[in-house]
């Protein structure tokens, strides 16, 4: 951090390299036929879930607030796309633009109540609201399809798997840059200030609740976009998207990846998805015990490496340097 210019240059080079690799990946995968198509699909999902994890981390890592209801906004985004495209014949780009807006509205309403509470109580209230939204979507059979979900979301002809992958990648890169900008802006610094010491933040003149609410809304909007993207990828929206166990996914991803870094949650999320599929390829029975593997991994992270993979990498890096 002390050497701003060199570390940010390294960051840019890393970022551009990764982006280029990701952009040319489908060309390589395309040679593999069906297997390749499957992996393009998996990579698209990874990108979307990475965005979801990053959106949560705006509140979790940077804001220091543990939300157990973040999936609600992810789900709201998904249902927005599904409903608009299925029932109102919206084009995809408009539906994808609406998803973060609707999710932001939902986040504004929920957040207005939640940011009044601290710590554990905040977590439980987000859980309560998340479950409340889940239940509403679940019970409103005529509108949301209830337990069946909404299927057959249309897909524009032009968007084959590869094109959709590229679309998601472009959206992801844009979102990444926006999130990076927000985190480094004076607003982002204010949010960190609140995380570090909420009481003191008030005494340097920061309107804590308003900043937290704004952050909550921004995070909700990105989650909504991710939800919309996943909805279009799967071509359906489903109540599970709002369930609290879905909220746990980006938390795990952030923790595994490292929640005090920008890319940590995205890395964590991708690693987890990849690991699951990797284990499945190694042996089919691994799917049955996937939750055990994930649980043990999580225990190890909680007990021995609370800074996550990025923290681990930095530690090793620092050690080898000195």
């Amino acid at each position, binding site marked *: 951090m002390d050497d701003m210019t060199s570390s940010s240059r390294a960051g840019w080079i890393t970022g551009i390299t990764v982006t280029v690799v990701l952009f040319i990946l489908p060309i390589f995968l395309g040679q593999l036929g069906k297997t390749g198509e499957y992996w393009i699909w998996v990579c698209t999902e990874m990108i979307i879930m990475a965005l979801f994890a990053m959106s949560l981390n705006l509140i979790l890592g940077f804001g220091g607030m543990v939300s157990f209801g973040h999936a609600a906004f992810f789900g709201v985004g998904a249902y927005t796309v599904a409903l608009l495209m299925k029932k109102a014949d919206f084009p995809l780009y408009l539906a994808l633009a609406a998803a973060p807006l609707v999710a932001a509205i939902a986040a504004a309403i929920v957040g207005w109540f939640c940011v009044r509470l601290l710590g554990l109580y905040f977590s439980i209230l987000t859980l309560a609201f998340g479950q409340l939204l889940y239940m509403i979507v679940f019970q409103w*059979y005529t509108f949301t399809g209830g337990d069946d979900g909404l299927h057959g979301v249309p897909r524009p002809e032009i968007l084959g798997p590869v094109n959709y992958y590229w679309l998601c990648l472009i959206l992801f890169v844009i979102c990444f840059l926006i999130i990076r900008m927000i985190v480094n802006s004076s607003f982002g610094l204010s949010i960190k200030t609140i995380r570090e010491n909420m009481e003191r933040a008030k005494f340097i003149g920061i309107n804590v609740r308003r900043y937290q609410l704004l952050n909550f809304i921004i995070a909700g909007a990105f989650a909504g976009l991710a939800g919309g993207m996943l909805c279009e990828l799967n071509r*359906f929206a489903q109540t599970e998207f709002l369930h609290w166990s879905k909220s746990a996914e980006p938390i795990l991803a952030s923790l595994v990846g490292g929640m005090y870094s920008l890319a940590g949650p995205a890395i964590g999320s991708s690693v987890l998805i990849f690991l699951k*599929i990797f284990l499945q*390829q190694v042996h089919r029975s691994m799917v049955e015990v996937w939750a055990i593997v994930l649980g043990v991994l999580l225990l190890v992270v909680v007990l021995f490496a609370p800074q996550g993979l990025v923290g681990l990498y930095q530690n090793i890096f620092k050690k080898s340097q000195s």
Partner: protein
Amino acid sequence: MEQGKFRVLLALVLIVFSATLVVSSNASAADVIKLGFIADVSGIGAPFYKSQKAGLDMFIEEINAAGGIKGKKLELVVRDSQLKPDIGANQARELILSEKCEFLIGPTSSAVALAATKVAKEFKKIIFFHTSNAEALTTTAFQPYMFQVVPNTGIEGRGMAVVLSKKPFKKYSLIGPDYAYGHDQLNSFKSEMAKRRPDVEILDTVWVKLGESNFSTFIPTLMAKKPEAIDAAFWGSQLSAFIKQAKPYGVFKDAPVSSLFDLDMLRSTGSDMPEGLTGYARAPFYAIDTPQMKEFVKKYYDKNKEWPADWAIMAYDGMIALTEAMKKADSTESEKVVDVLGGLKFNSLRGERYIRAEDHMANVGIYSGVTTKSPDYKEFLIMKDVQAVPAEEVWLSVEEVQKRQSEQK
């Protein structure tokens, strides 16, 4: 400095990734026909899974022993969708792309089926439903690569209305699981009953979350309006739990309950099953009197040391139709098999059946009867006075089917 590290890391990631790719692309062998089985292994569908699997395994064993199809052996690849549509859809995709399955066969839950059929359509792969039976699959969600060899919710709901309309009850309460299957089933029942018996009154419909097995808050509500009879659209262990819990609430004393009395449910309910309830089954082995069935039941019993449930029989029937079509088309390509399947006649365990070309629905009806204890089967009750309600009597007319199919988006 950091870049060097980073390059190593990136290279490492790429190596692991490529290794996985190589592993996964080698997963398929050329001399087998893979059937992707999206199952509901856990939860309320679990007992069904066992029976379906036993039926499928038996069929595959037999046909492979007879040389397979065009020399290729059949192989089953199983996934557990846990009754969750999103998981089911992802698995359908994974089975087609990564496992290279030629055909998909059916989930238990209709919600999963509705999700999976879309994937099958997208990749133009045949999906065969032998258990999940939403009527929507053949109408509003119809797509040419799907086939249904199980009586669908419309056939069942209307079929039960036909049966019950002959009974004296005038006040019904309905209860069912809150998802596609329950909704379709009870709506079909209501509309057919209204047609046949305008004097019948539906007092209340109680919706229960799929998988919920504690009925303590639902049963008093169900009984509050004092119905004369109850039509329940539960299945599997949810139905079994409902019956067990309804008994001490005195439900059966006040109002008989009708529902899907399949063998697995009867088995798991055991002696808690009241006698004298009118219900239906999809394929009761004890009541179907065809030579194929007799042979099947014997073989099945010898192999598994238990009687074949409806699910085993329907899964087996589904495989008969599918392999028959493959042989006729002399191909395993979906496009060609689809063409043969539409209108295909096949010799099922339930007798001669055909698949209607317009909606890819087999003409399978329901079997209705009254529960009773039987000296032949000690562990469970069976139905007596079983009457078949043929599909032709209650399924949708071709015009109706086409109308609904055209409403589809």
